[in-house]
Every structure is written in C-alpha cells, then in structure tokens.
C-alpha cells in the first residue's frame, strides 16, 4: 500500500469513516422519509426556465358555462388554474370545479392508453395505431348503413363542427346531450317572445332579484358569472344593498344567501309568479300597464294564489310591491324545482312577471344568447335510446358524456347500449358508460389539447394545451382526422391532418368576421393570449307575443304514491356527477351541511321527528321506479313535505374516489317530461320514506349550526347600516406591550360577509396553491381534514319568513398581530415576520402542537400522518410550497410564496409592491369578490379602505389577538327582533 502523506487521511480510513457515517445516516434517516434524487436536465427543454412559471390562457370545460382560465405551468406541468380576467364571463374568478380540473388531468384512474375488447370480453390495452386500425375497420364494416351516432356533450366550437362534418360524411348523426339542457327555458322564451334562445341576465343591474328555484350560485347556466353579478347587486354600496328573494321548496346554497326564502308548495311557482304579476298590474304598478295581460292575470287573485302555493297573501303583496318599486328588478326561473311537468308554463309565467315589471330588454338580454340552447332535446335522447334498443345503431361514439349515470334508469340506456353493435368511447375516464364500450380511445383533457368552446354569442374561447399529455392519450379531433384519412369513403374529405390545423382554419372565419384589420397570425396569437375572441353583442329588443295568453297554467303532475315530493338537485361540487372523481371536490365541505365524501337526504326537523330518524340514520326512499337508501341530514331549510338528494354521487365506476360512494337519486326518478318542451321533468316524483336500521356518523366538518353567543359571524340591520354603526374600538393603551411596528408592509385581508356566498372555491384554490392534502372520508370523520380555509356556516334565528338566516364566514389564519401561537412554540417554528405574517417553518417544527391549542381561531392543521398523493396527482404539487410530512403543523401564510414572488418582481423594477399587483389564491378565485388582500400600511390600498369600513369587525377581538383579517358584517334586511339565541335548546352533534 502506497503511503500518501499529502491528503492527511488514508484512503482506508476515509472509507471507514464514510462507512460509519453512512450507517449512522441510514439509521437516522430511517425515521424520516426516503431520500429522493434530483436529476438535472442534460439538455434543458426550450421555453422552460426552472423556477419560472409559464401561464397559458384557455377555457374551462367542467360545465357548459365556459369560463376563461389561465393555467400556470411549472417545469412542464400544469399546477394551478385561475380565472382569466380577460374573459367577460368570469372576469378572473373561478369555481371549485374549475380549480379541480387539475385533478381530472392528473387523475390516477384515467384511462392511460387505448383499450379494446377485440379478443375477449375484457378491455385490453392496445396501441394507438391498432386502435385506429380497429376503428377504421369497424367503420368500413358497419358504416355502410349510416347507422352511426356520435353522442357528445355540448361541443359548440370547432370540434363540434368537425364531428358534424364527419357524421355528415359517414351518414350518421351528431347528438349533443347535456344533463341539464334547460329546454323549458328555451321553449318558454319561444312562446313568450318568439325567440327560442336562452338569454343572458344582468343581475348586477338589478336592485331586486326574485329567483324561482334558479340555483345561479351553484350550477345554473353560468354560476361564476352570476355569483359575481349577484355580489355586486347584493353587496353594500353607498349604504344600500340589493334585495334577493328566493322561491323554492328548499333553501339551496343559492337560497341560503337570500334575504327572504319563500318555501313554496312544489310545482306551484307559476301560480305565484302570476299572482305577483296580477298584484303588480291590478295595483297599477306596472310601467306598461300589464301590456294587455291584465285580464288574463286577474284570475290569479292573491288569496287564490296564496291558498295554492302555501305562500301567505301578505308576502305576495310585499314581493309585488318591492318587485315593482325597487326596480330595476329581475325574476329568474330555473333549477330542478321549477323543472316539473309544467316547467315551460312556469317559465312563461315568470316571463310574464318580468314583462309586466318592465324588465325585458333591460335585465334580460336576448342579444347575447347562450349556445347551450343548441343541444339536442331530451326527446332526441329518448328516441336515440329507442333505436339503440331496437338494434338500429351500429356504431355509437361516446364523447364526454355519461348517460348511463345521468339518465333515469327507466329509460334503460344501459341495456340499449348493449344492443349497439360497436361502442366507441373517447372518454378519458372509466365511467359507467365507457366501461361498456368496445373500444376506448382516451381523449386528452382540455388542459392537454387544442380546441375552442363558445358558450355564448359574444365569446369564442380558445383551448390550448398547457402541457404534453400525461398518459398515452390523443385528442379526439386528431383521432377523427387520422381515422378519416384511412377510411376509403372519406378520402380527401378533410384537407387537414391535425386538429390544430383544422382549428386554425376554422378560426379564419372568426377572424374574417371580426374584421380586426390585422393579419390572421396576429389575430390568432392575440386570441391565444387573451384566451379567445370576445365581441360585443348588442341587446335585442323583444316584445311579448300574444301566444302567452293562450297558455294554460296547469298543476304539475307527480308520479308515485308517497307522501313526499322528491328533489334530485345538481350539486355545485359534482355538477351532474362528473366532479365526483376529484378528491378536492369530495373533500370540499358542502356549504349547508358541511358534509363530505358522501350523499345524504335533506329532511325537515318535523319530518325527521315523524319518521323517527335523526342525523346519521339511514332512510329508505322509495319511488315508483326504485329505492335508494341514504343518510339523513336534518335541515330546517326544506319543506316538511319534501325530501332532497343531491346528484353526483352513487357512481358504480369512475375511479377510486367516486366509486361506491353515496347514492344516485336519478336512479329513482320517473321518466316524466315537461309536456311543452319535451325536456326531462326533474321534479315529478312523489316518494315514501321509511327508517332503516342502519346508522353511521354523518361525516361533516362542522358539527354545530349555532354560534353559542360567540358573535363570530356578525350582522347588522339595514337601518343600523344607514344610521351608522357605533364602534367599540380596541384601545391600544390597554396593552401591556407597545404596538408592533411595521415598515412598508403589513399584509392584511378583508372579507365581506355580505358578499360571501359560501361556495368554497377559495377552499379548493387554497388546496391547489398550497399543496394541502386531502385525507379521505375516514379521516374526515375523525376531524382530520386539512383544509386551511373552512367556511363556517351558522343558522341564526331571524325574524324573516324562513325563521332563520344563514351566515357564511370563511375562517383562515387571521395572521394576528398579537398571535397566541407564536410565543408558545418552544423552537420558533412559528414566528412573527416583519410584514405581519405568522410565519411557519415546517422544517423546524417538532410537533408539540401547542400553537394549535393556543390558536383562538383553531385554524392550524396538523399532519397526523404523511399524506400521499397517488401518482400522478402529485404532479400538481406547487414546487414553491413545501410538502409537509407527518408530525408537522401547517397553516395559511397568506400565500407567502406569492408575496415573495411579487416582492422579487417589484425589486427588479426598483419599486415597492403596488396595491393589486398580485392576488392570493383564495382572493383570486372568489367569484363573489368578497376577499380583498393587500398591504395595510398603504393607506391608499383597497384592503385598508375595506378594513376601515363601518361594517368592519374582527372575530373574537376581545381576546386581543389583533387579527390581520377584518370581516365586514352581513346586512340583514328584516326588522331585527331581540337577539335570542340561548345555549339551552341547542344540542349539537359532535364527532
């Protein structure tokens, strides 16, 4: 062995040391997670700078509303979706479903490659070439007859055009099916105004909004847009607020945000609308004198209507008075409660009401109409099913629809599907319909593909790929073009070989129509950048047609013998069921019940008593079509004669998060249709209900409905608002310590409770931005959910017609100036940063959890386990935020990564961060614009102004935590009776 003196250490010794050190390290590291390797790029991809995100404008396809989105891409992966401020529909906001589209993209249960059953009954992976060859052969073999149907959802843009052309060439049919197609609305407008379109509404321009069942905050037409408009209308401006009255047999999330919830006898909304119209006309309050409808309306005297609808005559008179006098007003009709067998008539009645109050053309806009009115009617779907059943369909293409799940069982779509010779699904998810297909050619999700979508006249949204496909999937447009190239009959039919070319070609028409003066490339790039092409569409003058006077307003028909009306309502979290495979949405607490990961039936307390059930018990609900068994949620916001179950759960397939969870209420709906429009009648079942001997914990995130005198979600009456509020300001001289001083920045937030609607999009946005783990039902049942924001909801006794008022309050870390969590941490893992944030150093935390015990607001969440994101859901994780492991406390830090990013950018420009230069995730998402974030040291900032609003208060301020969040009180519009909420009569369920 050669002696080497230079190194001072012998090679053998070095190895020994390494051996010992390595062994020690191995022992030490056995407690924590295994080491992961970082592998640098050998040749870095172009356009990707590590650490610098790229943003792509696109269009959301989670529901037919078609909001504009901006997708953030880091190192080649889409990690966050935000609303596109350029898009006139959502102007920058988004809903929880839109946020969760990423969990569709990265869903671990996606179809990962084409599947075919060519060998056996089992679907087996095949390559794209083989799959396309199989399809080509099938088209050659079976296509001759022309019995080909392409069943898609509402694809209004270029892909729809391509499919139309393709079907034309093959002699087939393209049927567009939407679960909620709003046919009655279209038909009612045809009858009333001669326009078979669905208009857009201008809720923001109204002072008085009367909604007949329209759940515009949840799923109706364009929820983000209408929530935003509603918050403008209902928010406080110049000490005034708009009034919102909701008429429905149950107070939905939308209804719970109303100033008055009118609990109406199911199916009698037409009578109420006409009664109000009559009251307006007969009392001479109609600006157009009733427009000749006075005679017809006079049959609907207030007393008669009151008797039919269960709405007191007083209330009808009051509504009529306000509706006419508080103009501009607007009556909306929609949602399942008015979609019975008399749906069209009801909507005609509502049109009449709008007409006599002079709202048409003012707050109802027939210029910019919605394209969803172009989808096929329910009758088309029925006849398609018939012909499938009779073996008259040879090839059925399924694109982005799940009719086996969303159609009533009585229609037997599933069996009919079995009679189709060859079923091809383009779905990216193994849902109930797709699993019956013979060939699955998984489509890219909208985040991975080119496309466009036009939800209305004024908007042509572009969809662009934000990243390369996660799995071996292929855009359906490309598949169609490439298969067409192989089918002999279609040779030369399409000049383009890729869908991208086809799309551009199709946009040349839009370019031509736009007459923008620039060349196409500029127009294209400009549109891509803005997320689409937007134009102004002027309102179209309309007048009432004489046909309305011939409409007979019938009583609705109900099928079944039971005692209860049955409402299957679309869920704002799952829409028609398509959201159920996304854990963020499953774990987003439903606003009214705070329930997660399951289904339940809403039931009135009196009915619950009568049926001898309490929360958590199971109820068997039987209609003429079948039985479902689901858990009871006792809710005072529903009529005693009505039961309601949300749509979206009860999947028998569709991936691990959706499968075998809850019930699908559509299963027991009878096949009734609205007579005039042929649309499906959602509210047509009468059911019986009996208790079954099964009971489980009702898994929710808030086990009390009551504030217990804590005055957390506060409200003031309108009179107080007008008079001005007396302030009990905190006196800083009472403090032992001098106040903290901040230089330049003190980050703060204001949350306007008059605007917050409790939709939870902030929660999902926060989860996406901050790598907040989802934990599943079992851990939620143990109160171990990790959401950093919780929407607290309280039912306060109120002197209104419902007897209660719902208050929502988003609770997140208050970033206290005098934070109780900070001094108690023994290791400085949580500390006060110079900008007023309660910083949290995850690496330093040893997990004493004292901070959480001492947190007045209980907004800290502890990692009881190391939570896993199944591959590839973990691709979504934000690289700017630490992923926490077991034993560590975590909490909101006002998106400190965004603050730092903004400061970096400002520093580059030699400036301070200006107000509004960036938004935190929850604020960015909030469709109601209830959340304002900014610098409290800047006296010009919006958040400073909001925080010093008359209505401002800080939750539990008497503890002297000096929160950085100011809440603005909700405004109650009824005469405040004496505050009466004792603790005695409230028994809370706890879990």
């Amino acid at each position, binding site marked *: 062995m050669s002696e080497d003196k230079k190194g001072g250490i012998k090679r053998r010794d070095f190895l020994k040391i390494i051996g010992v050190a390595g062994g020690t390290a191995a022992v030490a590291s056995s407690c924590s997670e295994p080491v992961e390797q970082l592998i640098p790029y050998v040749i870095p991809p172009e356009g990707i700078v590590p650490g610098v995100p790229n943003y792509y404008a696109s269009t959301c396809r989670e529901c037919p509303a078609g909001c504009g989105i901006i997708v953030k891409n880091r190192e080649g992966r889409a990690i966050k979706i935000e609303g596109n401020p350029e898009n006139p529909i959502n102007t920058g906001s988004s809903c929880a479903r839109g946020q969760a589209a990423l969990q569709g993209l990265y869903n671990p249960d996606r179809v990962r490659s084409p599947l075919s059953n060519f060998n056996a009954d089992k679907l087996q992976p095949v390559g794209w070439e083989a799959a396309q060859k199989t399809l080509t052969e099938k088209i050659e073999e079976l296509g001759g007859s022309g019995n080909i149907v392409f069943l898609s959802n509402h694809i209004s843009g270029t892909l729809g055009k391509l499919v139309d052309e393709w079907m034309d060439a093959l002699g087939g049919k393209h049927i567009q099916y939407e679960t909620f197609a709003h046919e009655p609305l279209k038909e009612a407008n045809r009858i009333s105004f001669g326009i078979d379109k669905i208009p857009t509404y201008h809720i923001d321009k109204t002072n008085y909004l009367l909604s007949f069942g329209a759940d515009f905050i949840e799923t109706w037409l364009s929820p983000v847009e209408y929530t935003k408009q509603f918050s403008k209308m209902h928010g406080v401006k110049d000490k005034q607020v708009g009034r919102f009255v909701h008429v429905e047999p149950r107070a939905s999330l939308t209804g719970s945000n109303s100033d008055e919830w009118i609990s109406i006898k199911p199916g009698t909304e037409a009578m109420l609308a006409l009664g109000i119209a009559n009251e307006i006309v007969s009392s001479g309050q109609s600006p157009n004198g009733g427009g000749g409808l006075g005679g017809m309306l006079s049959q609907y005297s207030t007393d008669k209507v009151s008797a039919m609808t269960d709405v007191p005559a007083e209330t009808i008179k009051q509504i009529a008075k306000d509706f006419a006098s508080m103009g501009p007003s607007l009556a909306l009709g929609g949602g399942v409660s008015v979609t019975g067998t008399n749906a069209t008539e009801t909507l005609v009645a509502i049109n009449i009401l709008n007409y006599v109050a002079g709202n048409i053309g003012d707050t109802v806009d027939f210029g910019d109409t919605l394209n969803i009115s172009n989808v096929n009617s329910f009758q088309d779907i029925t006849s398609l099913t018939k012909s499938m059943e009779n073996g008259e369909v040879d090839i059925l293409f399924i694109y982005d629809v799940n009719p086996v799940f969303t159609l009533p069982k009585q229609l037997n779509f599933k069996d009919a599907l079995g009679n189709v010779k060859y079923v091809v699904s383009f779905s990216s998810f193994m849902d109930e319909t797709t699993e019956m297909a013979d060939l699955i050619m998984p489509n890219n999700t909208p985040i991975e593909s080119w496309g466009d979508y036009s939800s209305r006249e004024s908007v042509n949204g572009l969809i662009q790929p934000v990243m390369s496909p996660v799995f071996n999937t292929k855009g359906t447009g490309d598949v169609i073009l490439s298969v067409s190239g192989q089918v002999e009959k279609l040779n030369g039919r399409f000049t383009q070989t890729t869908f991208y070319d086809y799309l551009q070609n199709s946009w040349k028409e839009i370019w031509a129509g736009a007459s923008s003066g620039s060349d196409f490339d500029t127009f294209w790039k400009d549109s891509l950048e803005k997320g689409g092409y937007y134009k102004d569409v002027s309102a179209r003058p309309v007048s009432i047609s004489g046909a309305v006077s011939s409409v007979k307003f019938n009583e609705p028909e109900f099928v079944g013998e039971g005692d209860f009306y049955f409402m299957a309502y679309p869920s704002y979290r799952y829409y028609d069921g398509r959201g159920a495979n996304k854990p963020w949405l499953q774990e987003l607490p439903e606003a009214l019940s705070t329930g997660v990961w399951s289904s339940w039936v809403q039931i009135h307390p009196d009915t619950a008593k009568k049926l001898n059930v309490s929360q958590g018990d199971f109820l068997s609900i039987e209609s003429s079509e079948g039985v479902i068994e689901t858990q009871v949620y006792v809710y005072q916001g529903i009529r005693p004669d009505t039961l309601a179950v949300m749509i979206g759960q009860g999947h028998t397939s569709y991936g691990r998060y959706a499968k075998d969870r809850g019930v699908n209420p559509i299963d027991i709906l009878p096949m009734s249709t609205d007579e005039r429009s042929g649309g499906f009648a959602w509210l047509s079942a009468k059911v019986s209900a009996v208790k079954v001997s099964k009971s489980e914990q009702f898994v929710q995130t808030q086990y*009390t409905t009551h504030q*217990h005198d804590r005055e957390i979600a506060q409200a003031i009456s309108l009179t107080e608002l007008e008079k001005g509020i007396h302030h009990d300001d905190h006196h800083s001289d009472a403090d032992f310590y001098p106040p903290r001083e901040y230089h330049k920045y003190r980050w703060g937030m204001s949350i306007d409770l008059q605007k917050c609607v409790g939709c939870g999009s902030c929660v999902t946005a926060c989860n996406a931005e901050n790598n907040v783990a989802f934990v599943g039902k079992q851990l939620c049942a143990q109160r171990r959910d990790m959401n950093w924001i919780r929407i607290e909801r309280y039912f306060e006794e109120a002197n209104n017609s419902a007897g209660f008022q719902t208050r929502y309050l988003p609770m997140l870390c208050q970033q206290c100036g005098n934070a109780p969590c900070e001094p108690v941490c023994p290791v400085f893992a949580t500390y006060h940063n110079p900008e007023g944030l309660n910083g949290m150093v995850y690496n330093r935390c*040893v997990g004493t959890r004292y901070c*959480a015990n001492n947190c007045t*607001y209980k907004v800290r969440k*502890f990692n009881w386990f190391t939570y896993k994101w199944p591959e590839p859901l973990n691709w979504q994780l934000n690289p700017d935020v630490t992923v926490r492991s077991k034993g560590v406390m975590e909490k909101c830090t006002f998106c400190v990564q965004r603050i730092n990013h903004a400061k970096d950018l400002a520093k580059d420009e030699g400036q301070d961060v200006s107000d509004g230069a960036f938004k935190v995730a929850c604020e960015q998402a909030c469709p109601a614009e209830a959340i304002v974030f900014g610098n409290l040291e800047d006296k010009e900032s919006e958040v400073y102004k909001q925080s010093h609003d008359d209505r401002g208060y800080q939750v539990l301020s008497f503890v002297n935590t000096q929160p950085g969040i100011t809440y603005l009180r909700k405004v109650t519009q009824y005469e405040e009776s004496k505050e009466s909420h004792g603790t005695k009569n409230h028994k809370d369920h706890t879990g």
Partner: protein
Amino acid sequence: MSQQNTLTYARVNDDVIRMLDKPTFKWWALFLPTLLFVGIGAFCFIYQVQYGLGVAGYRHPVFWGVYITDFVFWVGIAHSGTLISAVLFLFRANFRMSIYRIAEGMTVFAVLTAGLFPIIHLGRPWNFYWLFPYPNQRELWVNFKSPLLWDVFAVSTYLTVSSVFFFIGMIPDIAAIRDRVTETPRKIIYSILSLGWKGSNWEWLHYTRAYLFFAAFATPLVLSVHSVVSWDFAMSNLPGWHTTIFAPYFVAGAIFSGLGMVITLTVPIRKIFHLEDYITMDNYDGMAKLILVTSGIVGYAYGVEFFMAWYSGVPAEWYQFYYRATGEYALFYWIMIVCNVIIPLPLWFKSMRSNIVVLFIISIFINIGMWFERFNIIVISLSRGFDPAAWGIYQPTWVEIGITVGSFAWFFMFFLIFLKTLPSVSIAEMKEILPVPKKEAKT
C-alpha cells in the same frame, strides 16, 4: 417518641437489609409482567413513530390528550415524594422517617416516567433534542417565552435534584449494606455507591449539613415545578385553561395525588415485608390529614372555577364549564368530583384514618380521580374552544392506552428493582427516632 416498641438499632439493620435478599418467586411474578407491559408500551411507541401521531386518537381541535394527561399525572405523583422527604424534613415531622425513602424513590421514578411523555407526544420525536438550547452551526435557538421550554428546564432540574437528593440520603445506608453483603459483585457495587463512607464524626457533620442543604434546595421545586407545569395551560388563552388559579391548584393536586400514590405503594410493601413496626398507623394518620387538606383545596378550586367562569361574563368561558358538567365528557367530570372530593371525606374520622383497608381503597380512588382531573382539564377544554365551528370530540386509541399502561409498568419496574437493590426504609434516619441502645452492664 412514637416508637414505643421493641425496635432496636440492630433490628432496623436486619429488617431493612433483609428486604434485599435474593428475589423470591413472588417478586418475579410481579416483575416479569412489568417487563411485558413495558415492551407493549415500547411497541406502541415505535408503531406511532412509524405511522405518525394519527394512530393515537388526536384530532382537530384536541391536539393534546392522554399523553399530556399522563405527563401531568406522573409529575404530580412525583411531588409528594419531595414534599415528604424535603419539606417535612425541614419541618422536623418525624412521621416521614419510615416512608420518605419509598416516597423519594417514587419521585425519581415518576419523573423518569413523566419525562418520557413530552417526547412520546411529539409529532417528530426524533427531533426532541431541538427543545434544548445547544449551540449549533445553524444558529437556531429555543424560544424562552414558551411555557413548554420552561417545562423542559423544570422537569430536567427536578429529575437532577431529586436524584441527587435521593442518592445523598442513601449513602450511610448503602455503607451499612456494603458492610453486610459478602458476594463479590454486590460488594463492589455497594462499595462504589457508598463513596467510601466510614461513619466518622467528620463525615456525619458534613453529611447532615449537605442533606439539610439539599432539602432546602428541593423544597421550592415542590412548588415551582408543578406551577410551571400548570403554566403550560394557564399561559394560553383557551377557555378552561386561561386562569390564574392554576399554579396553587396544580400544586395542591400534585401533593394530593402523590400522597395517594404513597399510600397505594406503602400499604402492600408494609404488608409483604412486615414493616408494620416501621410504617406505623401514626404515619398514615399524618398523610391522611394532608390528603384531607389538599382534597379540600382541590375541591375549592373546582368550585371557584365555576364561579369565575360565570363571573367573567365571557360566554366561551361559561360554556366550557357548563359543558364539563353536562356534556359528552360529564361522566369523567363527575368521576373526578366523586373521587377527589367525596370519597376522601370519611378521613375526617379517626377510625377511618386508622383503617388500613379504607386508606388503601381511598388512595386508589384518588389516583383515578386525579388522572381524570388532568384529562378533563386538557381534553374538555380543547374540545370546546372559542370557535364552535372547530369543536370536536377526542377518544384515545389502543396506542395511547398501551403507552399509558406501559408507563405504569415502567414505573413499577423501576420500583420493584429499587425494592430489591436499595434500602427502602432509611436505616440511618430510623435510628434517629429510636431510643439510644443501652450498653449491657458488664459485671
């Protein structure tokens, strides 16, 4: 002098050293199960480290549960040991002589047990040393504002001082054993432990001064350590915790529970080793009176808490106490009241104080009651904080039960080893209260 019997210096030596004879079958029958349960507890802890604290019953918002209950319980048990050995020494209360060694042993082992729990309850127990202020290249320091850090110092100081005091008090006795034993290994060990004690006047002079000094040094710890432990709660703002009464209330409770544990331990020892002549009924009478006093203080505190909650006018505070007595945990609350306030009441009667069976039964109930007192303070307060939306209910799991049982086994394991290796009655001090032996007249 109370010892009007046939105890002589020689007999004391014989009796005490006889206890250190080869372990009998009975001893093994007690000792082996403790090893088994310590093993079970260790398994539970390893399991918890592997999978995360979620295997315990913790949930939002109850972030502390059985482990901290156990911690406070064991720290409390430790207290009366020091009280009996140090405080009563300073007061020259002779009834301590026979029991103080057992009480001191109990103190040391209880602190050893208590000290485990802050580590067991950590989310990342492998980083427990971050709680100590040690110089490091990352320039990380601890937060001296945090009551948890005060806890670290209080408990480690207490362990150090009580161990030293325990050991110093034993030096003359160990020397006596050293002189008696013949087998080689024991002889060597006792020789080392006796520090070469010869029993000279000079040695006695310094020894008694040193003992007095340590007694005086340990005395404030009786008050301070449990006050510091109580500040873990009192320093926070949680309704049910945020109260100034906690320090005296906890100290009284600690002495109360410690005395209970002393009786629970000494009654069987007295019976098994036939120490009736050493641990007399007068000793028990003294302890029973102390129990009455501390039970009274604790009972008063329970009442005052309600009064203050009502008087404060804070709904959250009032609801907390209303809930304690009527909510989901009401059973535990009433167990606490019955065990700590009602059951000790018979001790007002002399006949009860001198009935060993009654004392033993009451002491068991005190142990139970005081464990639940800590559980109630910790868990019920946490489950009903300021914000009703965040309320929740906690239930311990098998892991927590396993570790709790393991902690009792751990304590008894040390205690059983102590009984067989060290003098459990002070030979030297017993002799102080015995009549001086008369020299036999020779012709």
